[in-house]
Every structure is written in C-alpha cells, then in structure tokens.
C-alpha cells in the first residue's frame, strides 16, 4: 500500500505541471489582443485622422481616371481624341482613338470602368461609417459626408458620360460574401441613373460650404455640387440622351429599354433652372484682367470700347483675361471663375502637358498639334468668322508679316494668323510665334521665334515622327511666358479649371435656347422657391454676352438670338473656341450627336514637308490632309463599349449598341 502512495505522489508531482500548462481553451485561440491597437473598419472611423484619410484616398481617383485633363492617358484620351488637338507619339494612341481602333476587348487606355467604381464604393463606405466619428463635430461630419456624396455622384457621372446607363451600387453597398450571381447587377435606366446622381449632388449641395480656404480649395463646394448637377441635367436633356432613336435598342438584362423613348423638352428647362441655381448664388464671375497696352487689343467698337465689363471691355484686357485662367498667373483661390478644381499637386499632369507642347529646341517634347479646323474656328478680331472676313479681303491666306505692319505679330508670320481674336493668340502656337521662356538662364533660349518648317530643328526632318506637330500648328494654351524646362528654368504651377463659370453661363444659354418660344416651365429652384423658365432672350444673352465680351468680341446680333437654329450654331462655335483643349469638345460633339459629321472629317493642317528656304514657302500654309491620323466615327462610338472583362464577370450586363 505504502508503495502505491509513493507512486501516487510522484505521479501527481510529475503530471500536474503538464496539466496546468494547458491554458484555457477559449482564450488560447483568441487573437483579439494582438489587434487591439490595429485599425479595423469599425475603429478606423472613430478617429478623425482615419476618416479624413479615407476621404483623401477616395478622392485620389480625381487626379487620374476622373480627371479629364490628365495627359498620362489615365483620364482617357478625350483631350486628343476629338477634332481639335492631337498628341504625337505615346504608342500611336491618338491615332488609335481618332481612327476608332478600339473595342470591348481592346479599350486602349480607357479603363474608367475598372477604376471609377472604386471611389463610388469608397464614398458609400464613408457615408455609412462617418457618423461613428465622434471626434468630429456634427457639421464636420456633415461636410465629410457631403464630400463623399459629391464624389460618388461625380464618379457615376463620369461613367455615365462614357458608357451610358449604369448598374448602380445599392446604398448599403454589396456584401463581399455574395455570390457572383448576386453581384451581377443589371444596368439601371438612364432616367434612374440621372435621378440617382442628381439626388447625390443635391445631398452634397445641402451640406457643403459655399467657399473653401486656399488650403482646401480642392474640396467640393456647394457651387461645385450645383454646377455638376446642372451639367448632368444638361447632358440628360441633350440629343444623345433625350429621345434618341438610335439608342432604343439598348435594353437591360430583363429587356427593359434603358433610354427614354420620348423627347422631353422639360429636361432642358430643368437643366436651365439648375444652371440658374449656380448663377443665382452670385458668387461666381468670369475672370477678367485689367487692361494693359501691350497685348492684343480689340478693335475700337462704339459700344464695347467705352463700357466697363460686363457691358464692354473698356477696363479689361481680353487677351490676358482669357490667358491667365490657364497659365497659372492667378491663383485658383483668387479666381472667381473657377467653381471646381482638382489635381492641384505641382507634379500633376499639367507639368506633363507643358512638356508636351513646348518646342523641341526649347527643351520640350514638341508633340502637340492643333488642327486647321480649330484654327479656322477662331473669329477675326472684329467678331466676324474668317469666311465672312474673306469676302471683304480682311482675311488673307497669302503673304507674310514684316514685323511692323501688325501690332503684336513678329515678322515672317503668315497673314492667316493676323487680325484674329485674342483667344487665338492665347491658345495657338502658329508657325513663327514667339516663345518667351523668361526663366531660361541661357539667353539663346529666350524670346525665340519658333518655326516648324521641315528643315528646322522643330520641323519634320530633324525629329522622329512623334517630336513635331504634324499639322505645323502648336499650342500655347497652358503655357506661361516664364516657363522653361531647360537649364535654370522653371514651370509656373497651373490649375485645372474642372468646372468654370463660363461653362455654366453657356449651359444656361444653350438650355434656354432649346425651349419652344412661348412655352414656360415652373421649376423648384435649389433655394426652394419656384422659378419660371422660358426661352427668354435676355436671359440667354446674360450667358452668351459675358463670355464673348470677356474675349473681346461683340455680342451676337439680335437676329441670331431670335433664331434657335442660328443661336445653336453660334453657341456650339463659341464652345469650340472657349473650351479648346479642355476635353470638353470630345463629349460635346457626342451629346449633340454631331460627332458623325464632325469627327468623320479628315484632319487637316499645314504642309510640314515644306522647308524654310523653299521658294514656295507659302505652300506650307496650304491646307493639307494629315494622312497619318485618319479619322473614323461610327454610330456605335457614341457610347464606349463596356469592356469584355466585365461582361464575362457580370452575366447580367448588356453591351452598348453596335459593340
């Protein structure tokens, strides 16, 4: 017996440490303690820094895919895919876009579908979680939430503009554990999309502040939300979307037609009222620079030369007024014309754009070309078109300047480029224009007159195919006379005016023009009161005249205002000039359904095979078809194809017509 007790004690002594080495089961597998100080979705939004960080990260898409003015190709190639501007090199992308060499399985650089739904989801997450952030005050939370609404709506709008009706993400978002079947959502109708996006813009507008300080100038404001809404409604009223027979065949998975079948004029009225909401804020005005005596001065005009802006241009310099919006001369926070801007980082795409447009001999890439069509669009300084001026002999195709005969023009410049409106000189680097490059340390780079004749260093002969403007016409917009990228030089920081007031004014005029004379609509404004909208010429003039006078051009004649077709033509013409190289024309031509005509015209320019010493130097300016950039536009191209990779993922997605 005694031995067994001995055994027992020994056994217990040896075994018991083992037993107690088994810790409690439930805590053994518990890993929460390791994650206590680590961010999770629930904890992240309780802290201001993370909530702000989420918003910052969600907006990041504004710098690339959503940014129309990005030159890296990320924002799509709209800038170089229309009939006004070309970019050489870059893997012949411009040619591919211009010539319609894309399809559902080859979307070139256009990957908005892939990337732009991401901010939609991120914004939805922020909207859902932001109320957890007790570190923020109620109004701060409301602001963040409103910014998220703005982002979501903006991202959707960018997608809508590209692809047409979209599948919308439910407000609660998707549960990631859903089956692919459940995640395959079909496209909503155009009206549902527009409605949804408009509601988001309105929610944003309710809580966004009207003004931002300089260090938050990139955040949306109430004006930005209202302006973006006005643009959305204008698009929805435009011919491409409003009763467009060509789109009736587009159906969703269930067979429902996605485009409205009836033309609805009231949509124009709502668009006009929305633009009016922005105008009524009385916060924005077109940018004007005080008059100087050294630049392009409009001809003396009995009315406009004596009156101050906006009734005339007596106190402003139209050339500088237009140019300074784009060349960085004025800070965006000091510019009342800018309603929404983004990509304010000095390293952003504008630096790249400037590099592209600078002549090769001035350390640039020399690879932006402006089409002859765009050059011809600019008015003469007296407001006549070049065709009108030709009949009176004021527009001359032959001959060169001597350097003293025309103010502002150096010698040896084609007379084609004489006596044009101020916006021409602010936008176009014609053959022989002067590049100041004031920041260059070496004097030989300053104030150079740059020619694109074949045998010169900026011409065809000495540069490979992507290092000279194939049309013989370069671009000056976005160039500041101080800019120089070579030794000693610097580049003035520029801002993108994503939405500027000039746009709002022209939307207003455009929308009003489309209303039948005599018909009026009562619409509830953003402020809550009812407004009456009708084709009121004075209201149309309010929009159109401001833009033209700022540019040093007289207002349109009354007979044009009274004729909807004539006014429409003038308005389109005005937009083509005013918004040159702002990625607007690409989308305008599509929403107007003008692309079939406009984008099937061959691209023309100068004859870049002519050398400087050629006896027939004149021939350089003979309009020549640029065969290396063929143009092709098919009816299917009004909407982009939905990428093939998405169609294989989402079984319920229906492809756009013709793809």
């Amino acid at each position, binding site marked *: 017996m005694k031995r067994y*007790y001995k055994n*027992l004690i*020994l*056994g*217990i002594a*040896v*075994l018991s440490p083992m*037993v107690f*080495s*088994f810790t*409690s*089961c*439930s805590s*053994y*597998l518990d*890993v*929460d303690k*390791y994650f206590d100080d*680590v*961010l*999770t*979705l629930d904890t*992240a939004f309780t802290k201001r820094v*993370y909530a702000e*960080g*989420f918003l*910052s*990260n*969600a*907006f*990041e898409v504004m*710098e690339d895919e959503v940014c129309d003015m990005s030159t890296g190709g990320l924002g799509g190639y709209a800038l170089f895919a229309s009939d006004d501007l070309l970019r050489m090199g870059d893997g012949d992308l411009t040619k591919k876009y211009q010539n319609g060499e894309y399809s559902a399985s080859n979307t070139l650089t256009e990957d908005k579908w*892939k990337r732009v*739904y*991401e901010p*939609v*989801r991120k914004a939805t997450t922020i909207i859902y979680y932001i109320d957890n952030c007790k570190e923020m005050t109620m109004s701060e939370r409301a602001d963040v939430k409103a910014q998220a609404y703005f982002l979501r709506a903006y991202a959707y709008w960018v997608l809508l503009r590209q692809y047409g009706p*979209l*599948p919308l*993400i439910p407000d609660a978002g*998707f549960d*990631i*554990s859903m089956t*692919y079947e459940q995640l395959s*959502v079909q496209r909503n109708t155009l009206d549902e999309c527009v409605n949804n996006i408009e509601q988001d813009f309105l929610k944003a507008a309710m809580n966004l502040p009207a003004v931002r300080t300089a*260090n*938050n*100038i*990139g*955040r949306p404001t109430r004006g930005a939300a209202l302006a973006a809404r006005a643009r959305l409604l204008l698009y929805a009223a435009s011919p491409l979307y409003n009763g467009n027979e060509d789109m009736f065949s587009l159906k969703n998975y269930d067979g429902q037609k996605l485009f409205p079948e009836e033309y609805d004029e009231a949509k124009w009225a709502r668009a006009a009222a929305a633009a009016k909401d922005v105008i009524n804020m009385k916060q924005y005005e077109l940018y004007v620079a005080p008059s100087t005596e050294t630049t392009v001065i409009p001809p003396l005009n009995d009315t406009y030369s004596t009156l101050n802006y906006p009734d005339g241009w007596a106190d402003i310099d139209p050339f500088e007024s237009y140019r300074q919006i784009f060349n960085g001369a004025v800070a*965006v926070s000091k510019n009342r014309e800018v309603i929404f801007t983004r990509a*304010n*980082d000095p*390293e952003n795409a504008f630096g790249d754009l400037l590099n592209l447009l600078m002549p090769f001999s001035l350390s640039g890439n020399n690879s932006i070309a402006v089409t002859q069509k765009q050059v011809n669009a600019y008015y003469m300084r007296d407001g006549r078109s070049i065709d009108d001026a030709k009949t009176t002999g004021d527009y001359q195709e032959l001959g060169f300047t001597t350097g003293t005969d025309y103010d502002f023009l150096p010698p040896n410049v084609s007379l084609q480029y004489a006596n044009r409106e101020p916006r021409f000189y602010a936008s176009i680097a014609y053959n022989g224009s002067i590049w100041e490059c004031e920041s260059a340390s070496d004097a030989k780079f300053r104030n150079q007159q740059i020619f694109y004749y074949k045998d010169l260093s900026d011409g065809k002969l000495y540069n490979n195919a992507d290092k000279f403007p194939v049309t013989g016409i370069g671009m000056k917009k976005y160039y500041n006379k101080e800019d120089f990228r070579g030794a000693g030089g610097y580049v003035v*920081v520029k*801002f993108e005016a994503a939405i500027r007031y000039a746009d709002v004014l022209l939307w207003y005029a455009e929308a009003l023009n489309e209303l039948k004379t005599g018909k009026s609509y009562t619409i509830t404004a953003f402020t809550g009161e009812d407004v009456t909208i009708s084709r009121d010429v004075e209201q149309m003039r309010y929009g159109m005249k401001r833009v033209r006078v700022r540019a040093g051009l007289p207002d349109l004649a009354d007979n044009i205002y009274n004729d909807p077709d004539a006014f429409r033509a003038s308005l389109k013409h005005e937009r083509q000039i005013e918004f040159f190289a702002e990625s607007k024309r690409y989308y305008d031509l599509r929403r107007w359904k003008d692309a079939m005509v406009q984008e099937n015209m061959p691209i023309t320019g100068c004859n870049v095979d002519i050398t400087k010493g050629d006896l027939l130097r004149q021939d350089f300016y003979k309009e020549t078809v640029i065969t290396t950039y063929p143009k092709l536009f098919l009816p299917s191209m009004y909407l982009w194809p939905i990428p093939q*990779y*998405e169609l*294989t*993922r989402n079984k319920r997605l229906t492809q756009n017509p013709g793809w």
Partner: protein
Amino acid sequence: MENIKRIICSLFLMLICAFAVNAQTVKEIRGIVTDVNNDPLTGVSVFIKNQPTLVTATDINGRFKIKAGQYDILVLKYIGFTIKEVPVSTIKGEIVITMDEESQNLDEVVVTAGGMSQRKITLTGAISTVNIKTMKVPTGNISNALVGNVTGIIGRQTTGEPGENNTEFWIRGISTFGANAKALVLVDGIERSLDELNVEDIESFSVLKDASATAIYGSRGANGVLVINTKRGEAGKVNINLKSEEGYNTRSRTPEFTDGITYAKMVNEARTTRYQDPIYSNQDIEIIGRNLDTDLFPNVNWSDIVLKNGAYNNRETLSLSGGGTTARYYVSGSYFKEDGMYDTAQKSKKYSTNASYERYNYRTNVDLNITQTTLLKIGVGGYLTNETKPRMSSSDIWSSLSNLTPLTVPRMYSNGLIPTYGDGNTMNPEVQLSQTGYLTKWENKVETNVTLEQDLKSILSGLKLIGTFSFDTDNTNIITRAKNPELWYADRRRDSQGNLVMRRVKEASLMKQSSESSGQRRYYSELKLNYEKILNKDHRISSLLMYYQQEKTSTVGITDVVTTSIPYRNMALSGRLTYGYKDRYLTDFNFGYTGSENFEKGKRFGFFPAISAAWVISEEPFIQDNFYWLNMFKVRYSYGEVGNDQIASERFPYMSFITTSASYNWGEYGSNNVQGYRITTMGSSNLTWEKAQKHNLGVDLVIGNKFNATVDFFKDIRRDIFMQRSQMPYSTGLQDLRPYANIGEMESKGVDGTTSFTDKIGEVGFTLRGNFTYAKTNVINYDEADNALPYQMTKGYRLNQTRGLISLGLFENQEDIDTSPTQTFGVCLPGDIKYKDVNGDGLVNEKDVVPMGYTTVPCFVYGAGISLNWRAFDFNILFQGTGKSDFFISGKSVYPFIGSETGNILKNVTNPEDRWISREISNDPATENINAMLPRLSYGGNANNYRNSTYWKKDGSYLRMKNLEFGYNIPREVSRKFFAENVRVGFIGYNLLVFSAFDWWDPEIGSSDGAAYPISKTYSLNLTVNF
C-alpha cells in the same frame, strides 16, 4: 470547449488518485532465446506486455530470467526478428523460445495516428508502412527515398544542389488548389520537418492516407499524415552501431551545348532563311575553326569550365543503445557532408565558393521507469547545418550557362579584363562562380520532447494516460559576402592598331556583407487516455481520447505587419473507438474536434468524424477450413471528413485590414496633402476551413505467407477551397479588395497499391516487390469568369493541366499557309509550325489554347524491386518510375536564337536532319522535312513557332534505376576477432540509370529549359559495424 477541458482535467486527476492494488501470483521464468538455426541470440529484450518497465535482456548465451504474473504475456523483441509473444500460463520450467527472422508477416505492427501501434490485421484505414532499410540511400534528404518506395506518395526532385536537393511530395497527389496541399509530418507525434532527419534514427515510418487514419488530426490532416517514430533504447547489453558511407556524386544528364562553329553556322542559317544578312562571314568562321582570335571569337565550352565531373559525399553515423530495467537509452550522432559540382578549384581565391553542405545530427532518447507504472520518456534531437554557396543563385548560374553562347565573351580578355555582356548584370558563369562572393547559411534546430506514461491498470486494466510536452526551436542565419569585379565588353571589331575596343560596362564593387535570418519556436502539449482490452477472448476494444494544443511562432523576421508575430495555434479534442470481433469484423470510429486561430470567434472549431469497417474474410471458419493457404483476405472501407485550416497565405482572412494608401492633395500649390487610408483586405464573414470528404476502399491479401498485396481505391472531394475572389464585377467597386471565400471544389480519384512476393529457392532468399500510385484530379468549381470556350476554363479539367495550341506539324509550302486558318502570331513561312484552329473561327490565336495531356507533376508513380540474399551476401535493386506527366520545353536554350545574341544552343538541336531547312539553303528539297523536330530557324525570336503547343510538349515520364545495393556480412568468426557482433560492407549505386523518351535532361526536374542543377548519380561504399 471550456467545459470539455475541465472534464478532462478532473477525470485525469481522479484517475491518478484512484490507484488500487491488483494482486496476482508472481513467478520467476527462465529461458533461452535462439534463432531458427538454434544459435543463441544475445541482447534480446524480454518484457511483460503492457508493462514495458518490467524488462530484461538475454545474455551472451541467450539466457534470461524475469518475474511475471501468471496471466501476463511475455514479449520478446530483437532487431531484425519478429516480435514474439508467449503467455506465461503456457510456460513450464525453463523454456526454449525460437525467434523468426522478420519477413512480411500478419503480426506486423503498424504505427497509426496518435503514435499508437496496431497490428496490421486489425487496421481498417489506409495506412502504408515502409521498411526503413529501403530508405537508407546515400542522399542528404530522406524525402528522396519516398517516391517509388512508399505507396501513396507522388513527388519529384527538382534540383540536385547540395542542401536544396529534397523531394517535393504529396500524399496521393495534389488534391487541392488551396494554399496548402502538403502532408502533415509528425516526428514522435509532433509536427516537424522531414528533411534533415537522420535516417538511421528512424524506427518506424507510416503514411496515413484515408480519413479514418487521419481524422483525429481534424483540420490538419486533410492532405494525409506521415508518422515517424525515432528509435528508443532496449534493455540489454550496450549496442554500438557504427556506419560509414563514402560516396561519389556525379551529374546525371546535364544539358550539353554546341561548339562555336556549329553555332555560327546555325546563326547564319537562321538569318538567311528569314532573308536577313548573315552575321558571321566565312572568314569569321575560319577564325573560329582555327581558334585564331580568343577575344572576339572565343569558342568556349562553358559547361566544361565551370562544372566538375563529380564530388564526394560522406556520412558517418554512430549510435549507442541499451539500458536496464529502470532506464534505457538511444544516443546517436551523425555527420554528413556533400560537395557541389562547381569547378572552383583553380580560381585564385583564398575562399571557396563551391556549393557545399554539412550537417551534424544528434539524438538522445531516454526512457526512465519512475515507478512500476510510470514511464518517463525524454527525447532531444536536432541538427546543425552549414552550407556554402556561390553568391549568385544556382538558377542564375545555370541560366547563364544556357544563355551564353560559345562566342559571346571569352573567359577573360587577353588583356586581363573580365568580360560581361548585356547590361552588365549578366556575367559569364565562371565569373559568377568565382568573382562575385559567396554566402554561408547556418541552421540550427533543437527538438525536445518529454512524455510521461502512467499505466492505470490499478483502476482499469488496459487504461493508460500519456502526457507529452515538446518545445522545438530553430534558427537560420545567412551571411552573404558579395562583390563585383570590374566588367568590360569588347566591341566586335579592332582599332587600326589591331587592339580591342574595350568598353567598361560596370564598375567594381568591393566585398560587402549582409545578413538575414529566420527562426521559429513551437510548443506542443498533448494528453492521451488510452484503453485497450480484449473481452472474452473475442472482443477487442480500444479507445483513445486525445487533447492537444500547439503553438508556432516566428521569432525572427517580424515585420511591421501585425500578423507576422501572431502565433499559429491549434487545439483539438479527438478520439478513437475501435471494436473487433475475433479479428474478423472490425470497425473504427474516429473524430477530431479541432480549432484554429485563423477563423473568427465562434467559427474556430470544427468536428471531423470518420468511420471505417473491415471484414477479414480469411478469418471466417469456412475459409480457414477450405483455403488454408489464404492467410489473409480483408476488405476495408472508410469514409470521413477532414479539414485544412492553412487555407491562405494571408492570415485571418475574416478581418479587414486598413493601411496607408494613396493620398489626395486638397490645397493650392500642394499645400494640404492628407495621408490616405484604405481597406486593403476586406474580411469575409462565414469563412471556414477547407473540407475533404474521403472515401477509401481497400483490399489486403496474403497468400501462403509469401504473396502479399494491398490495393486501395480512393476518392477525395475537396470542398470550400479557399480562394481570393478574382471575378468580382468591377461595377461592385469591390474588385481591389480581393476578398477570400470558400469557393473552390475539386475531386481527386485514384488507386494505390503494393505487392510483394517472398520465397526461398535453395539457399537464395528473395523478395519481389512493387507499388504504384495513381491520382487523377478534376476541378469542379473554381473562381473564374465564365468563358464561351469551356476548354479554356480551369473547371472541368485536371488541376495544373498543361495547356497549349495543337500543332499540326510544319507548313509545307506557301499554298499550305494560304489555305489554312490565319495564324495571328506573326508572318508564317513554309517550315513554320501550323496550328489547329480549335474553335473554327478561321483564326489561330489564344482562343485555340486547349488543355492537353497531363500535369508536370506526374499523375502516376510506381516502384519495383528485388531483394536477394544468399548466405552472407545480399543484393537489392529498386526501379522507380513515373507516368502520365507532360511538360513544355521553352526558353533560350530550347528555342534557337530566341534571344538573338544570348541563348546557347543545345547539342540535341544541332543535327541538320532534325530541322526544316529550306531548299534555297541546302539545294535539296528533301531537307524541307515537315516532320522535323525543329521548325524553320529564326533569329531574334519567332512569335508563331515559339509558344506552348504540342510541338514542344514532352513526355515527362521516366524509369530510373533508383537504387542498386550489394552487401556482404563478414562471417561472425572473423568479426568476433574485432569484438564486433556484425560487420557488413556494402555498395550502393543511387540513381545510376534513367530511361525516358525525353533525354535532353532528367525529366524529373520538370525544367522547361534544363537550366537547373541536375540530380546527382551516386556511387557509395559503406561499412556497418555492430558491437
């Protein structure tokens, strides 16, 4: 779980307290133990069954005495002999017990799950066992001996580099495309590594294949389990075992490259046949042929320069075992060294950069009887390895061997400068080997385990409680000493004075050193309650209840990602219940209730049950009466579920992780950049382990105690395989989060079997044996987009099936090209490869890529061997082979001139008869052979010809003579003079012959271009001395 744990603990304490007296009459037994020739056996351990603590050993005359109760059973155990059991009740006076030498036997004991041993006849699950003797091959890693030796294992060795030359293997093939398809390896019951284990230390080796065998490992056992137990001491005299092996490794098939002239001529042909100018003039070829310009036309055979024919390896092992009634021990130590085959001898460095691998293994297993019923087992084992390698990785060196043409650069320019080509990072292999430094890798591993066995027969006869605790730790340090010489390139011309025009491509960098390290530790605790009893002679009952918990933590290499420091933890309660009636009707129930830290709270535990049953038909009386020669005929079936918790490379996939990310700038002039945050991984709810449903039907047959066969048919359906969801529609905005989900499903079916025949003709004893394993997989569900071309989907085909275009041979002429579907990869000429337009759209493009053939990892593995012994001689041969394996060859050495100036040409492709040569070059229409091995040559790559297709698909199957062994036992009269019990000298030839349809390099390495360290061929002499 908390409750269960409490119950176990209290049960355990209760049992300990409940010792009781169990009295029976004790008598002393005397006896002599002999072999069949009546020679006495010394050192046989004799003990009482179930009481390993009551033990003695026979003396030099084979005599023993032991005290035993009248109902006890005496057990006799001796290495090389079958265990013998003698009931005490049958013993009268001094007895003579004859022990039989070990052979295939019904009473063979098999180690099963939980480290328990079970007689083979009572098994109901699918378990393969291996005779350790057959695994004693002269390689550094025991894993190399598995394939062809062990039924149910499919694997391949992909490199022969010392220290890296192990075999990647899977039990019954790869049955999941989830993150972890590897088998669980248990050494002494603890999850440990198989590599680096000293084969001499292994006592038993079992492979648990079906669900009933692995169920108690729950969520860890889905891919099968290897159970290895190390040797322990036996009571008796000191047994000293000395073994010395001296081997010589040579390279097996190594790709051979062509000489400069053939190369230059082929370059010219490749250029001219595509209407380009030739590169080498006739004068150049003359210079090459006469070796006139060693700088610009060097004509070097790089393989000859950097590779030796062979290298030595050796292993010395010493083990001691023995002990007495209170303590027994097994102590061993071994040293293994293997040198690499790089020729670095003549290089002017004071250090060697050749690959070499050294390993010191040690192991001490001690068993102590603390009380008559308490046994303490302590095991300490481990190793230390020391490895040296050239600083450039072996893949760099081998790829530069296959990249560098004989004419690219010389070994050294005549002006003493060191050459390079390309961008300067590409050097000739000799420079890579000798001029870029070296690295040393040092690894140390210590494995300790303590087990306490308490016999509780005082409470209940047959009840035993076993507790184990183990602590393992390992550390690896790598110190790299890197340098670069100054590198130059000579343009292929000379200046007016005839000097080389040299260009310095890269500056020298002095010797710099850096280090990296990794390490981990593992705790493991286990408590087992085991009960075994035979009731009324006929009813055999056993049960096992096991609780364990395990923790593995990285100790080095912790990054700022939190998950890298969090221990991997498992815990489980598992059990087994077996019932057998007359060893005739057997049934088992197994379960594992296991938990893993990898899942969210409330979802951490899973229950994995398995049932199995067997009918031993041969035990039926009518069989025994009528078919006396049928020793065993058993049919088994099992079904069960097991799991896999290591499901993704990412841990805690249920959690969302938020990290800093791209930012946006709100302010003017970039004045307000707010740091962005985003969700980088979105946690998925409802995640669970991968589950396997396994069926196994097996038959065991023993005829006349000579013929033995086992065949198992299996079916493994793997569900809930974890995958990152890659097919989220972008319109959900979730695409960038790539959440995980239990989506995948696949099926793996197959059969494995083993057979042997043992007999004696005259004095020659022989055994014929063979085994095979075949597995076929079918992916049932996979996260992928629907494809209008079903054959382009993973779903519905073998996992990792080779895919490519179907080649229809070579184009005969232009008309053939014009009338065939358009091939979209580039302009085709006659002699280029013609492909099949599978989808019939008139175009040959990526849409015509179809699954074909098998997988690179073989689907079928077999082994066959013969053992002979005649008097003191023994002979053993093993053939091993694989079948149903395909791979594509590609790359610079296979596709001639795909890399223009780089890309050496294999000798195998230089024979003009093997390629299509246009009549314009050969002036002979017959050379336009449309059945040639190579298409029309091209220079700088050919997108049409050089792509995966049946044209380049090779059969990966092979048959190798894996092992050839002779042995001679020196007569005992001679050996006794040296005080040795037994002396054996032997020769092993390892991997001496390989037969395969594809013979450019060893197909087992699965390399597409042969640029890999070849598997070695070894001749080894060994001497074994037992004292």
